[in-house]
């Protein structure tokens, strides 16, 4: 190859690269412009606002807003409640759906029907759930009636009680297990069958098989399911809001309630600071999860 040809080739390669870049950027452009306009740019505004004295007074306030928010009684309660809810709901969701997926993965008659049925709660609109909810869980509802009849317990006002959080977690599980089960089922299916078979030949029991083989293959899925559950656990607010309104029982007051109430009072500095704090918290949590996953990954490969 002569020098000229070489140069020509490398030139055409850079040309192709530029073309590639141009085309892909063109495809990205609509989304990128929208994301910049509706998320990144206003978020930058938000950060600026969180350092200002107020929406009208733009003088620098230092960390005043942050200390205000972080010492705000309502914010602390709200973030504690949200954290507790997610911290219980996400692991419970992962474990239960893994269990159900394992059951469905064994030789059970009517697997696909069960799978479809378990997915349906996801499709039930929030507003419909709320109506059913009131029938079963309100103070004079069915559940209290049954409990009174069977065990002679006093009626519990479910949404104004310590039990409220448990009820919400159950609701979350009811809604989200189906999708998690699908994710786990497909992961279980992707495990090479030969490995399972050879482990059976070597005399590994079901439990040993699960912990030594399946769990290894399920690692990324568990991570993904955990993240999806985490996102969805924040959406439990919908049911909660429709059931209990702006100011629910103390234990049920979540971050979204806090935000909503700040919106209605148009308290921009608290609002923006709260959002920034939450964003940082989310990034930290997700970062930890990513870190844990990559550690787990490299640990098992060696």
């Amino acid at each position, binding site marked *: 190859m002569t020098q000229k040809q070489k140069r020509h080739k490398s030139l055409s390669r850079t040309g192709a690269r530029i073309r590639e870049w141009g*085309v*892909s950027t*063109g*495809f*990205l452009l*609509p*989304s*990128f412009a*929208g994301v910049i*306009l*509706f*998320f990144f740019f*206003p*978020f930058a*505004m*938000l950060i600026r606002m969180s350092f200002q004295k107020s929406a009208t007074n733009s003088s620098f306030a230092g960390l005043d807003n942050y200390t205000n928010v972080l010492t705000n009684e309502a914010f602390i309660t709200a973030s504690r409640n949200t954290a507790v809810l997610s911290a219980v709901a996400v692991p419970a969701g992962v474990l239960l759906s893994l269990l*159900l997926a394992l059951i469905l993965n*064994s030789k*059970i*008659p009517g697997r696909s029907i*069960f799978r479809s049925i378990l*997915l*349906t*709660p*996801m499709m*039930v*609109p*929030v*507003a*419909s759930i*709320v*109506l059913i909810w009131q*029938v079963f869980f*309100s*103070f*004079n509802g*069915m559940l209290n009636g049954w409990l009174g009849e069977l065990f002679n317990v006093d009626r519990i006002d479910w949404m104004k009680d310590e039990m409220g959080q448990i009820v919400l977690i159950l609701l979350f599980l*009811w809604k989200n297990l189906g999708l998690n089960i*699908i*994710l786990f089922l497909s*992961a279980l299916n*992707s495990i090479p069958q030969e490995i399972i078979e050879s482990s059976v030949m070597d005399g590994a029991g079901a439990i040993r098989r699960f912990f030594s083989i399946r769990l290894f293959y399920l690692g*990324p899925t568990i991570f993904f399911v955990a*993240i999806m559950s985490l996102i969805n656990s*924040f959406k439990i*607010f919908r049911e909660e*809001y*429709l059931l*209990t*309104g*702006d100011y*629910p029982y103390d234990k049920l007051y979540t971050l*979204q309630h806090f*935000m*909503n109430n700040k919106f209605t009072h148009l308290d921009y500095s608290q609002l923006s600071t709260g*959002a920034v704090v939450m*964003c940082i918290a*989310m*990034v930290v949590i*997700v970062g930890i999860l990513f870190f844990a996953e990559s550690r787990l990954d490299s640990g098992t490969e060696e």
Partner: protein
Amino acid sequence: MDDRIREMRRRQATLARRNVYKPTPEVSSYFSSLKPEEKIKFVSSARSRNAKILAKRRLKNRIFTALGVAVISAAALLALIPIFFTFLNSFMSSAEITSNYGVIFQSLPGDSNGAAEFLSRRPQLQLIPQQVSVEQYSKLLFMTPSYLFRYWNSILLTVPIVAGQLIVASMASYSFMRYRRKRREVLFFSYVILMLMPFQVTLVPNYLISDKLNILDSYLSIILPGVFSTFSVFLLTKYMRRIPSAYIEAARIDGAGEWQIFTRIVLPNCKNAVFAMAILLFIDYWNMVEQPLIMLSSEEKRPLSVFLAQVNMDEIGMAFAACALYMVPPLLIFLRGEDYLVEGVSQAGVK
């Protein structure tokens, strides 16, 4: 029989320990050395032993399967009850519903902090209506336009978001699939982070920009952030990256332009993921509560998802019918697209 073999083996082991070699008796030679009646006994005992082990194993399997079926059916029952409950009750007459559940809604406190009244009457759970009537539905459809308007609002909000986001996100995903340099990967990662942000965080910037653009209290303030939300980019990109690059190379050699590659090769190949995303997005936005609460200050613009929860006492019968109708589109979409959903989503969690 066993004992004899065992004894021979033991003796042989002892001999071997003394370095006295004696060949191991083969089972066949042992077997042929037996008398005929002993042979029969030997075979039958081995057979019965095997049968016993097999039966034990089968029983164990059966017990486990039964347990599994029991657990799964319980879960399935819990999953289905609310749906059946709503649909069956929506066919009751309003008098029947009031007599069954009136207690519940009577006692609901006016504001959310007030305690519920204690009523001695108990509600009655009834799954099958005493008399099937479509009274609720006719009332809902012909006499109360407010429900229908809210229903239409829901459609007006959901459909553009789903369609728009799928178009924008699939193009972005194509770009993320084709071009994988460092800076682009960083951008992709920031998209993922954005996808993971709960509404609590993203709504504030959305509100601010809508305020700036003067589109608050109009549907655009919900639709536009919805369209540009990055929720579906992650899954679609992940799915597209599984398409063999040979397909794209072949198409390019055949003279296809980028747009053609995108619409003819890439999109058909990730049909499952696109449909799965369409279903997930549809449910998500059909159910939206946070956005309308914050963006839409005028009541009559809000969708049914927010409105349905504010039913008052004398409308509970109709609420059942409205809930049932509200459930229909997602359920239909689900029935139609379940396979796509399962196929499309299932690739996401697997490496």
